């Protein structure tokens, strides 16, 4: 039996009454500036959102072996995500139970135990206290579970993606993901063996609220303008054969691509229907990347008809899959949003590579990955930089106190534009802000709730 400790009094309520009138702050078609700027709301989010719902932590390929660890955060809580000696993945609070010192200062490594640098308390990577210097100086039995490291009680993986929540009433992860799990399956299954491995990242920081990134995750409206420099650059030699996201330029709403909301704040934007469904269809859309002509010629020479299906593995999958509040799969990236403060956020684009499943020619794996690294560096370098510049400028704009509202009403109120299916999923044109209206309903539900949160310790 593991000891569970219930966490009381989420700070969305003070003295039993709501901190804010959430229905006034988030309306059907607009949101109040305070939700992006108010430190008290941010603090409540760290409990009710980053804690109250499933939050992405890491990918299993980052801790492939027993006793591997990485340090991450759940909201602002510092964590050690570790695979213990029995292969069980745990999310330990990175904090000594004695005085609160950070236990592990390294980003990653392999260790069976963590010793506090301050007084030398030593913990197994299961979280259990192994020993303290001179224990006879304590009247108490130091085997009391309260001295074992606090850990997140619920840590579950879906096909390698590790999520965690403190909410004892949250649905099992796979049920929580619901219909978006199938889209994640499709994203994975185009890769050999249905697998990817994380291989470092493009890491950004912006001075703006974390929701500005999530509001962008499914936004097909900004592409033509926020990314105009990218669209122009990647098409500077393209002529008739438009490259990259050029299909956004002319009336994107008339294209077969769409956005779909699948519940619980999760949504995806599917640009796949815009592509030619043939081997090489994805590759044909790739703009210029280092080495592409060499590898294309080499693959045609080596693999003949099979070359283009292999080159597609280096191409960016044209879908954005977003799991509220902090996870996106887009192109071949795993993008993660980490709140740093109410007005500061990390946006991390983890790269992924393919693995040898015995079916892809062995000598092709290294070359596909060499190309895939370069295709993945394209958007962060030439696209994300402009988005986060715009997020920062939103945060500044929201300092205009009296102009209170942020609008998300594109498509709202137009008959037959937004379609709700029998399973509750909502589909709209790719530039519609329906995704944002819907994820804010989930945000509001979580902020109003009194979640059943807990931490646990080894017995």
């Amino acid at each position, binding site marked *: 039996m593991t000891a569970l400790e219930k966490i009381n009094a989420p700070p969305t309520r003070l003295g039993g009454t709501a901190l804010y009138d959430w229905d006034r702050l988030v309306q059907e078609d607009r949101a109040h500036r305070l939700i992006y700027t108010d430190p008290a709301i941010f603090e409540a989010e760290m409990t009710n959102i980053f804690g109250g719902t499933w939050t992405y932590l890491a990918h299993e390929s980052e801790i492939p072996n027993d006793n591997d660890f990485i340090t991450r955060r759940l909201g602002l809580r510092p964590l050690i995500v570790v695979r213990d000696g029995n292969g069980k993945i745990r999310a330990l609070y990175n904090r000594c139970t004695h005085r609160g010192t950070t236990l592990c200062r390294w*980003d990653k490594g392999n260790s069976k135990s963590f010793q506090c640098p301050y007084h030398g308390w030593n913990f197994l990577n299961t979280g259990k206290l192994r020993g303290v210097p001179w224990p006879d100086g304590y009247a108490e039995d130091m085997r009391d579970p309260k001295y074992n490291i606090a850990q997140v009680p619920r840590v579950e993986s879906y096909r390698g993606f590790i999520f965690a929540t403190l909410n004892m009433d949250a649905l099992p992860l796979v049920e929580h993901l619901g219909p978006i799990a199938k889209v994640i399956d499709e994203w994975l299954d185009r890769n050999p063996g249905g697998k990817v491995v994380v*291989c*470092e*990242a*493009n*890491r*950004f*920081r*912006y*001075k703006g609220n974390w929701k500005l990134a999530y509001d962008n995750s499914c936004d097909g409206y900004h592409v033509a*303008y*926020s990314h*105009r*420099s*990218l669209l*122009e*650059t*990647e098409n*500077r*030699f393209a002529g008739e054969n438009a490259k990259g996201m050029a299909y956004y330029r002319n009336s994107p709403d008339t294209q077969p691509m769409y956005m779909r909301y699948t519940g619980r704040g999760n949504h995806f934007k599917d640009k796949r229907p815009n592509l030619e469904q043939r081997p090489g269809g994805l590759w044909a859309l790739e703009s*210029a*990347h*280092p*080495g*592409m*002509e*060499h*590898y294309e*010629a*080499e693959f045609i020479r080596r693999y003949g008809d099979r070359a283009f299906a292999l080159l597609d593995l280096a191409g960016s999958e044209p879908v954005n899959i977003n799991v509220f509040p902090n996870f996106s799969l887009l192109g071949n990236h795993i993008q993660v949003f*980490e709140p740093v403060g109410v007005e500061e956020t*990390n*946006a*991390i*684009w*983890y*790269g992924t*590579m393919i693995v040898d499943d015995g079916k892809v020619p062995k000598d092709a794996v*290294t*070359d596909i*990955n*060499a190309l895939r*690294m*370069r295709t*993945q*560096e394209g958007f962060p*370098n*030439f696209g994300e*930089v*402009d988005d*986060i*510049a*715009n997020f*920062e400028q939103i945060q500044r704009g929201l300092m205009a106190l009296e102009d209170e509202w942020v609008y998300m009403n594109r498509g709202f109120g137009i008959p037959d534009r937004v379609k709700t299916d029998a399973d509750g999923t909502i589909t709209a044109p790719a530039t519609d802000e329906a995704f944002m209206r819907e994820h804010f309903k989930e945000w509001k539900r979580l902020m109003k709730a009194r979640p059943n949160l807990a931490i646990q310790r080894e017995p």
Partner: protein
Amino acid sequence: MNAPAQKPDPSRTSHYVNDALYRALIENFSDWQDDARAVTDLAVRDEFRRLLEREARLLDQLRYDDWLAMYTPECVYWVPSTPQAGDPRREISVMFDDRRRLEDRIYRMRTGFAWSQAPASRTVRLITNVEAFATARDDTRMLRSNFLVSEFWGDETRVLTGWAGHRVTRDGAGWKIEAKQVNLIDCDQSIRNPSIIL
């Protein structure tokens, strides 16, 4: 009639970024800072110091065409995402540009729609601790220098700092840069909008 084989234009197509280049790059940027191979001739070191100072000045002045002319046609500009600079075939880089992508980078900033560079950052680069090392090739040297880039954008000044490795090769009376590896001290951490050329 046999026309002489045309070498592909690296500004338009990328044939030179291949497995051989990656292997050479990894080898050339491993174990090169060897005291036994340090160039001690002060006049020679000064020549390299001037080359690096000129590069810094051209970048500060946004003179990108002049800056690119300091590079060989088939060049590499590489900002690793780990302090150990792993194999770029299996590790994402902060930036990994061939000539064409460097020209993309410059083209993008000149579109007028690169919002992260609208207006353009003002930068001042300090280049210090310049050392030069001999290589196995007579016509090639490796340079190490420390840099500190102060970047003013919006209403604040940010600092990007680290050390760079340049691989330079003889070009007539002077030298051209074949590869530049920029090692930010915080390359594996979240960096505030790195949208300038380092």
